[in-house]
């Protein structure tokens, strides 16, 4: 079964993608989409070395919601910073040791940090143990790290890595 359907989630995503692309849910397109959603993962399976084990899907969903809301907040915050007096920007680099270890979770965390208010993951150390973050208002680095830990890293750890 694993060799025949290496990535069922991916297959589902691809079927969805196909239907989005063709903008149609006719039986023919569903059949064609299914065929492709089966064949393409079969061909690309070997590119997906790290299997994602979602332990707590609901937590992940909640995290998604948090991030989406934060993106909106981030944009408004950034908008005010851009338009407002430049003196309000007190940028700084923050060094944040990572607790997440997996490839996917580290990557997700880095992306989330960038999308959310005032922070940007500037560099991941080659050993993946720490992240350099650039913050637009980075005077209080400890507070920022704490917030990131609480809001994003912990849920990621719980959803993807904690056994």
């Amino acid at each position, binding site marked *: 079964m694993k*060799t025949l359907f290496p990535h069922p989630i991916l297959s589902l995503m691809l079927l969805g993608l196909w239907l989005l692309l063709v903008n149609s849910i006719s039986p023919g397109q569903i059949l064609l989409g299914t065929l492709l959603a089966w064949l393409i993962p079969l061909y690309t399976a070997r590119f997906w070395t790290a299997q994602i084990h979602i332990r707590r899907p609901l937590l992940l969903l909640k995290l998604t919601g948090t991030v989406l809301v934060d993106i909106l907040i981030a*944009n408004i915050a*950034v908008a005010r910073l851009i338009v407002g007096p430049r003196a309000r920007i007190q940028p700084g680099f923050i060094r944040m040791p990572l607790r997440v270890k997996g490839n996917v979770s580290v990557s997700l965390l880095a992306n989330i940090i960038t999308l959310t208010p*005032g922070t940007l*993951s500037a*560099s*991941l150390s*080659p050993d993946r143990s720490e992240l350099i973050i650039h913050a637009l208002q980075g005077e209080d680095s400890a507070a920022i790290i704490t917030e990131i830990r609480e809001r994003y890293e912990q849920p990621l750890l719980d959803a993807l890595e904690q056994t």
Partner: protein
Amino acid sequence: MTTELTTLLVEIFVALLILIGAGFTLLGSFGLVRLRDLYERLHTPTKATTLGVGSLLIASAVFFTWREPGVSLHEVLVAVFLFITAPVSAHLIAKAALHQRSPSRSGLPPESLLEKHDGHGAKPRPNAEAKQKPSQTG
């Protein structure tokens, strides 16, 4: 509801999304010009521009869903794609900037830290995946 009213409401909704989207798009580029160092500038396109274009794409989805038969959601694809890639792009640009020691208003992190992040000094962890032959399931 009459067709006219629906039309009007949809139009207003779409118009609003367009204005918000275009506004944020402009904001992103404005930040690009206004902010004072690269690391600051990196914040604006990744957030504002991405959101702006996302908003425009939703406007498009709504518009075509209303205008043509069936649901038009393929715009979502582009939006999702942008949201996934924008932070990665920003990350890589920041990485390149740190590698080049692009100046920062607030001062760069200590040189030893940058050396470490460039992979010099500390030996990088070998990429385990490259060595082992991938199995069919991974």
